[in-house]
């Protein structure tokens, strides 16, 4: 009975969404802002990757909100899974297979390096802080899977997270005192196009986001993998 009602409701919603989307031409540009970004993003922000110039340039304030949402989600998970004073340990302590534990030794530094590469080159190549941070967190996940005894340094992770979050906001506030006087204004020199030290504050912010997201998601994995004894 419940399933039938659910299916009927789902069909109604589907038909409604379908009808409302029918009038919009698929794939056709609806506004002119996209063309503006593609034409002018390089001169405006100095970043070669137009996606990055939107995410950390034109819409940097939205990104600050996005980072805050992720922070609150990680905080909520930590609060739900927190153990009140009890001893924390890990379950399922059977050792990992030789392939996993030996592969981890070679792969862990490489994955960390790849994640750092993604967020330091966010303004030049595809990717950025969020992708790089997720890659770094997956490296820590690999460690958790391969060696059950190891744990991340929790105070170090939370210190990294807080400092990089503060760096993001501090850079934004510095923008108020320079040049055009608005929050997250790009006050650093833009440099030559297509070089590592270009695009002003964009690589700095992306490094902060990468470290923040990486330590946050590693903390989430840490919270989930351990349980009270």
């Amino acid at each position, binding site marked *: 009975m419940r399933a039938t009602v659910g299916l009927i409701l789902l069909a109604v919603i589907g038909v409604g969404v379908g009808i409302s989307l029918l009038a919009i031409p698929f794939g056709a540009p609806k506004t002119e802002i996209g063309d503006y970004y593609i034409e002018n993003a390089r001169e405006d922000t100095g970043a070669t990757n137009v996606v990055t110039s939107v995410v950390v340039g034109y819409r940097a304030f939205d990104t600050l909100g996005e980072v805050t949402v992720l922070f609150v989600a990680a905080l909520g998970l930590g609060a739900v899974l927190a153990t009140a004073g009890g001893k924390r340990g890990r379950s399922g302590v059977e050792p990992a297979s030789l392939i996993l534990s030996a592969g981890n030794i070679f792969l862990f530094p490489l994955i960390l390096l790849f994640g750092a590469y993604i967020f330091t080159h966010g303004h030049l190549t595809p990717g950025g802080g969020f992708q790089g941070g997720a*890659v770094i967190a*997956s490296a820590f996940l690999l460690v958790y899977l391969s060696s059950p005894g190891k744990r991340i340094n929790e105070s170090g992770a939370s210190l990294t997270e807080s400092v990089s979050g503060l760096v993001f906001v501090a850079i934004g506030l510095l923008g108020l005192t320079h040049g055009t006087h608005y929050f997250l204004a790009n006050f650093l020199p833009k440099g030559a196009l297509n070089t590592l030290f270009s695009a002003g504050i964009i690589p700095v912010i992306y490094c902060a986001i990468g470290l923040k997201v990486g330590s946050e998601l590693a903390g989430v994995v840490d919270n989930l993998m351990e349980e009270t004894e």
Partner: protein
Amino acid sequence: MIIIVSLLVLAMLTAAVAALIYRDLLSAVIASCLVSLLASILFFFLQAPDVAMAEASIGAALVTAIFVIAIRRTKRYEE
């Protein structure tokens, strides 16, 4: 190009339906991981490499791991 995209979408739909049908939740999680992985390949073919990277690292890797951990702590089979 259109053939590759259609094949990818077809495989995604198959994996999504499989994830719904499986009673074994571990198999269902692997099937939904396949949906994310194929979606990231599809994003790459649609010239959105930024989204493809986010989908591959978060959708295929981290979310799958979190679901597997959750299944290990609860029950593996749906009633």
